[in-house]
């Protein structure tokens, strides 16, 4: 960086000098003519004419200077290339080291670029936002929106060019091979928000959808795959969810929002829904008007939410609103982790650079004479540095190209390994942007590893180095520099290894966290009941009951049950509820000193009675659900321990009644039992309040099946399907997985980062060990004479060993000390990924320090052994 500043300063300086020089010439010429008798003005004019144009002269000089510089540069590269070719061993090691450093950096950069840096592939993506409700009570910031709230937002908000709501489900396409596809129901302005027009046909009419409307829009992918890419598809009818829908449009290739969706249907708000402000299930996206900022929209929406809170206090009081850039929201979860990975590869790169710097320093010793001669021949210090840096740049280019190859090869493996939840995975690729970054990296690394050796080497006084025996004085400074580099390497490796160690320990801890249920031997499947077929609650309840009967009858099945959500199976539905007793003061301000607010919310699960047994969730107090708890009887429910503690601290909730804000006529349910907590949202997320209501008493369109089997659950898949079809032959059975598989994907994220960090840390360790080895080996060679003398004088080999190893150990200890200090600071960046282990966990720190110490000792051992084998006679003659 110094050099760049220096050069820019010089260029300005050179320009001024040139201008002054030309000016002086004109003045002198003028004086000459005046002295010869010409008038001053005439003289000046003639002088300028003879000059032939000031700018031309200056331009000619600039060209020449540039030409000479370029010529030098080419010569430097050619010379450098020749030198490198003459020492293939050194070149190979240096290039390989740089490749190991740059490869991971480029691979991670592909991820960072594709996910974080590239803007979304829609027109003016910076205007696209996502809207959420926020729960003012428990601080949740990503609560979905209810239809009436959405409609009010839509009517009142002025900040948006377009606003749309959607919900993802899936439906079965029949009429051909039955296939389940991701479906989204969307409001009319949906495609407008994304600024994407269909490649064929139209989007939904601008008027809100009416019940019974049966239009559908297809994705490009499914149009090609299932419908043969026929142009006549627009206007044809296809069967979606066993009902005919007319295809009115096809979206362009690559348009998939939300992720995994292939079919878009119009979103129909049933009249009853419009009264339920608490039925929150919609995602909302919008496009801001030109010139409106996200902050302005946020302010407006907060105001609207507050207005609604006053207008409908029972439902809306606890809800605020949040507007956030769509891109930011998509990548929010991943940003800290990517940042951490970037730091990790930066460390690896630094260590690689330090290694190469060391190698160059060693090499520079052999080049002393050559440099001295050049210096005597008139090469200035800058010129010498340019020569050495050109050589370094060639190494960097070699390493960079090899690194690109490594990154390219490993990108596929990385994509396979990465968790499904990684957003924008499709934009991660090795392309021109990454290649450009690679070249920038080549320049940067050249400066990093080349600067120190070049500066040192060029700082020679020619006369001194041509003499013999001056190594002692110059050597001391260089040895110190090398030692500093080694200590840096050790410290960096330590930090990286500690980070990796902590994350891996978290992984272990995560995998052994008790999730609150027994996940072994459970087979699951998803059942989506076709809306057309099952309209009445009674029909759904009947279906559920018959199904449970058939499933339980399968030989080998211990218990069978249904539930709307299974553990770790995705986001839950949150509903507000009223506690009996709140009704006492419906319009008065709630008293803050009571410590409770009029409206609370919890996650809702509809389950069959055997659910608790199937998953071995313990009943802590009261009773579980019984088969007698059906519609028409007393409405009952269970709550989990977290809910009991949160809303009835110090009291017993059993016997209390609450009314859940769901459906057209919510009834009062009595709490009859408390069950253990289950980590539903993820193993690392603490449990939230949850309610269990019998499926027979409230209804849903989507069930999951959970079967507890004796023996391998996967082998019961076909039997399960047959049981379902024996109740309804057209019922699709989808996502048949064991519960273990479902859980597996939840730890996928931590596993991904753990593996990557582990790989990088290992790489860093290897590089650092190699670096130490080469420094130690060189040091031994340096001291061959001294060692030979000691051996000749009768020193025991052990003492010689101690000498060498002791030197290495000293450096190691300093490095470890620095590294520990650094790690204690740096581990805050992996804190988000940690689980069950503190970020300054002493056991991890100690273990890593131990590993590094062992590595250093191993690296010193070989040179040390070699030292003891030195023949004293040979050594004494050694130069």
């Amino acid at each position, binding site marked *: 960086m110094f050099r760049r500043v220096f050069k820019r300063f010089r260029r300005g300086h050179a320009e001024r000098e040139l201008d*002054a020089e030309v000016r002086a010439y004109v003045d*002198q010429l003028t004086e000459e003519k005046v002295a010869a008798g010409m008038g001053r003005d005439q003289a000046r004019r003639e002088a300028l004419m003879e000059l032939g144009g000031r700018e031309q002269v200056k331009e000619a*000089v600039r*060209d*020449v200077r540039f*030409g000479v510089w370029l010529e030098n540069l080419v010569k430097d590269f050619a010379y450098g290339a020749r030198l490198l070719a003459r020492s293939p061993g050194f070149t190979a090691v240096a290039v390989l080291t740089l490749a190991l450093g740059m490869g991971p950096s480029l691979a991670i950069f592909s991820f960072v670029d594709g996910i974080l840096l590239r803007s979304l592939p829609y027109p003016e993506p910076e205007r696209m936002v996502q809207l959420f409700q926020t729960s003012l009570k428990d601080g949740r910031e990503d609560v979905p929106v209810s239809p009436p709230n959405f409609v009010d937002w839509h009517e009142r908000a002025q900040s948006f060019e377009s606003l749309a709501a959607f919900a993802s489900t899936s439906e079965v396409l029949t009429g051909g091979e039955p296939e389940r596809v991701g479906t989204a129901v969307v409001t009319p302005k949906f495609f407008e928000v994304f600024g994407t027009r269909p490649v064929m046909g139209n989007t939904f009419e601008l008027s809100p959808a009416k019940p019974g409307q049966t239009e559908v829009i297809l994705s490009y992918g499914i149009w090609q795959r299932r419908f043969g890419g026929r142009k006549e598809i627009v206007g044809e009818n296809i069967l979606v969810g066993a009902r005919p829908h007319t295809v009115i449009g096809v979206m362009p290739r690559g348009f998939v929002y939300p992720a995994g969706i292939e079919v878009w249907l119009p979103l129909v708000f049933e009249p009853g829904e419009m009264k339920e402000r608490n039925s929150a299930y919609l995602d909302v996206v919008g496009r801001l008007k030109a010139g409106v900022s996200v902050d302005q929209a946020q302010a407006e929406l907060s105001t609207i939410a507050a207005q609604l809170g006053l207008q409908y206090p029972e439902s809306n009081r606890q809800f605020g609103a949040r507007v956030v850039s769509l891109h930011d929201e998509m990548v929010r979860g991943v940003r800290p982790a990517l940042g951490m990975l970037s730091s990790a590869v930066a460390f690896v790169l630094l260590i690689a650079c330090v290694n190469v710097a060391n190698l160059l320093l060693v090499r520079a010793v052999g080049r002393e004479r050559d440099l001295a001669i050049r210096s005597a021949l*008139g090469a200035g210090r800058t010129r010498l540095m340019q020569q050495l840096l050109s050589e370094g740049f060639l190494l960097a280019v070699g390493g960079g190209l090899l690194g690109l190859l490594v990154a390219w090869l490993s990108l596929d493996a990385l994509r396979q390994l990465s968790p499904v939840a990684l957003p924008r995975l499709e934009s991660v690729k090795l392309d021109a942007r990454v290649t450009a970054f690679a070249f920038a990296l080549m320049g940067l690394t050249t400066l990093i590893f080349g600067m120190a050796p070049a500066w040192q080497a060029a700082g020679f006084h020619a006369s001194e180095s041509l003499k013999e025996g001056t190594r002692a004085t110059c050597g001391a400074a260089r040895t110190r520099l090398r030692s500093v580099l080694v200590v840096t390497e050790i410290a960096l490796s330590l930090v990286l290894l500690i980070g990796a160690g902590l994350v891996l320990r978290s992984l272990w801890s995560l995998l052994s966290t008790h999730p609150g249920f027994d996940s072994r031997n459970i087979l699951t499947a998803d059942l989506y009941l076709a809306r057309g077929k099952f309209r009445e609650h009674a029909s759904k309840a009947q279906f559920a009951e018959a199904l449970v009967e058939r499933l339980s009858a399968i030989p080998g099945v211990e218990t069978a049950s249904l539930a709307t959500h299974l553990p770790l199976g995705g986001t839950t539905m949150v509903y507000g509820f009223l506690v009996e007793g709140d009704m006492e003061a419906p319009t008065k301000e709630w008293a803050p000193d009571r410590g409770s607010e009029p409206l609370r919310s919890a996650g809702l699960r509809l389950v069959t009675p055997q659910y608790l047994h199937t998953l071995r969730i313990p009943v802590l107090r009261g009773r579980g659900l019984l088969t007698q708890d059906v519609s028409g009887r007393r409405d009952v429910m269970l709550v989990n321990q977290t809910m009991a503690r949160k809303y009835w601290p110090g009291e017993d909730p059993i016997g209390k009644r609450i009314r859940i804000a769901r459906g057209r006529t919510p009834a009062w349910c009595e709490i009859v039992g408390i069950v253990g907590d289950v980590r539903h949202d993820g193993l690392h997320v603490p449990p939230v309040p949850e309610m269990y209501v019998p499926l027979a008493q409230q209804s849903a369109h989507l069930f999951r099946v959970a079967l507890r089997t004796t023996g391998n659950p996967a082998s019961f898949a076909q039997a399960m399907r047959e049981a379902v079809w024996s109740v309804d032959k057209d019922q699709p059975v989808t996502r048949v997985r064991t519960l273990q598989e479902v859980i597996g994907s939840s730890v996928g994220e931590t596993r991904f980062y753990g593996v990557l960090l582990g790989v990088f840390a290992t790489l860093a360790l290897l590089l650092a060990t190699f670096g130490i080895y080469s420094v130690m080996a060189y040091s031994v060679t340096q001291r061959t004479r001294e060692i030979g003398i000691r051996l000749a004088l009768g020193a025991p080999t052990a003492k010689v060993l101690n000498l060498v190893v002791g030197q290495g150990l000293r450096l190691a200890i300093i490095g470890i000390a620095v590294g520990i200090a650094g790690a204690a600071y740096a581990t805050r960046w992996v804190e988000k990924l940690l689980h069950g282990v503190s970020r300054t966990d002493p056991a991890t720190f100690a273990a890593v320090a131990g590993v590094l110490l062992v590595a250093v000792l191993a690296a010193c051992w070989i040179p040390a052994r070699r030292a003891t084998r030195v023949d004293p006679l040979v050594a004494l003659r050694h130069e």
Partner: protein
Amino acid sequence: MASSKTDLLQGTLDLLILRTLALAPNHGLGISRRIQQITKGTFDVKPGSLFPALHRLEEKGWLDAEWGESENNRKAKYYKLTRAGQRRLAQETREWERVALAIARALEAT
């Protein structure tokens, strides 16, 4: 002023400049006048060729430049020959003599 314009090759100009400065340092206009003088008016080097040549020779390390005062007490940029420049001058002179001899022989040959 020369009666006929004689073209100067770059290498020749370099040689003339180096020769001129071998005796004493000089500034741009001074060098031009001196070359005129010692070539008895054959070569009149214009600033458009002189300045690029001076700067190139400086970049290559054969000349050193320093600001000083000229004869009439004005500031001027003075060029002087470096040690490497001296060696270059000797080298180029030998080369020139070799070439001149060869051409002379060629012209005499029958």
